[in-house]
């Protein structure tokens, strides 16, 4: 087993374990914990350096395996001792087996999806790729805009504000939610519409941005305003409604 092992090839510790079990034709229903733990650790030891964030997951599994191995060696009465029962996702070999089998099935589905994706990439609809553009979806919405899209737009506003240096120091204006709600409602009457980013024009302070955003959400909730995002990932419009 001198070949260069590359952890990047595996999607995670479960993927690696599955590979070790399947390639050695071990019985997944009777996983030899001691043996698999040793092989897993040997594999980790030989592996190329992995990026820090991914390495953690592999080491957590190593710890889990060592715990399972230790439990197998200890007589039963000794293990559950002093009530230090921390919540464990995998506390028995049966747990591990269940997790591996479950993961394996999703891996299989992922394989099918990958093949389906490949086929779909060869097919095109009228004027644009039917797979990637223009399909209207029933999104979970705040008003008519998806939660994710709205948050994304707001974060963009915050980022932009961070980059703009304050032109001059204005006196600290108190930012009050009720007042902000009133201001926005006055600004955007029935039938008026402004772009989402326009709503925050000139604002630099984080607090002010946040209060304004909350005021906007409140007004949508109350029904004074509605949101619209006609193009996917495009501009979000804030539109006044007649009460």
């Amino acid at each position, binding site marked *: 087993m001198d070949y260069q092992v590359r952890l990047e090839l595996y*999607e*995670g*510790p*479960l*993927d690696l374990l599955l590979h070790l079990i399947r390639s050695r034709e071990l019985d997944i229903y009777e996983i030899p914990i001691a043996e698999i733990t040793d092989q897993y650790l040997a594999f980790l030891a030989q592996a190329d350096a992995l990026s820090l*964030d*991914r390495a953690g*997951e592999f080491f957590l*599994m190593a710890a889990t395996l060592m715990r399972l191995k230790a439990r197998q060696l200890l007589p039963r009465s000794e293990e559950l001792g002093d009530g230090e029962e921390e919540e464990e*996702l995998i506390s028995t070999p049966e747990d591990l087996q269940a*997790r591996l*089998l*479950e*993961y394996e*099935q*999703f*891996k*299989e*589905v*992922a*394989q*099918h*999806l*990958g093949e*389906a*994706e*490949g*086929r*779909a*990439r*060869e*097919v*095109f*609809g*009228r004027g644009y*790729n*039917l*797979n*990637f553009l*223009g*399909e*209207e*979806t*029933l*999104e*979970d919405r705040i008003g008519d805009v*998806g*939660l*994710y899209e709205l948050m994304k737009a707001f974060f963009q506003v915050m980022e932009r504000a961070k980059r703009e240096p304050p032109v001059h120091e204005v006196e600290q204006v108190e930012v009050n939610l009720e007042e902000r709600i009133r201001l926005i409602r006055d600004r955007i009457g029935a039938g008026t519409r402004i772009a989402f980013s326009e709503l925050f024009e000139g604002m630099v302070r984080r607090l002010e941005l946040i209060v304004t955003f909350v005021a906007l959400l409140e007004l949508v909730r109350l029904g004074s305003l509605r949101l619209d995002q006609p193009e*996917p*990932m495009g501009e979000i419009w804030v539109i006044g409604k007649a009460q």
Partner: protein
Amino acid sequence: MAGSPPLSAIVEAMIFAADRPPSARQLASQVEGISSAAIRQTIEVLNREYKARGSGLEIVEVAQGYRLVTRPECGPWVKAIRASGLPPPLSQAALETGAVIAYRQPVTRAQIEEIRGVQVETVLRTLLDRGLIRVVGRAEGPGRPLLYGTTDRFLTYFGLRSLEDLPPGREIEDLLGEGEAGPGEMARALTEGGS
């Protein structure tokens, strides 16, 4: 009525120019005295005609609607003539995460991470950005974590008519867990609830 084009022409034209894939029911509602069954039959006839004359087009069903699309065999030439390239195919991590969400929706990030054994934050963002998954609500309990589900675009992206087109896996009970609805039922509940 004299001068009215044949049904096949009307259906073909509607499918070609609709804003989004029309269902058989939607098509039928546009033509007086025609049922969904008749529409489906007409589409079958159209596809047979296309095939018979070696057309580069065909009508397919995705996400419960019909689309007029190019045949996969023509893929290379169509790609060459199109200006815009395709976005990169999804990573294995994205496919696995998508698979978990498709079967287990609504599902939280923590639940997905438990099944895959790895963190999914970046992958979730990719899937969200591509419009393949969406936030469908919040789970009960501490922190009220976000729940995720697949979108209609997920179906069109993979060329599926519905989640029921997904493979059942070796043992469907194991995959779905005890007492959970199948992917099809989940999808129905979500799309009905979302309108």
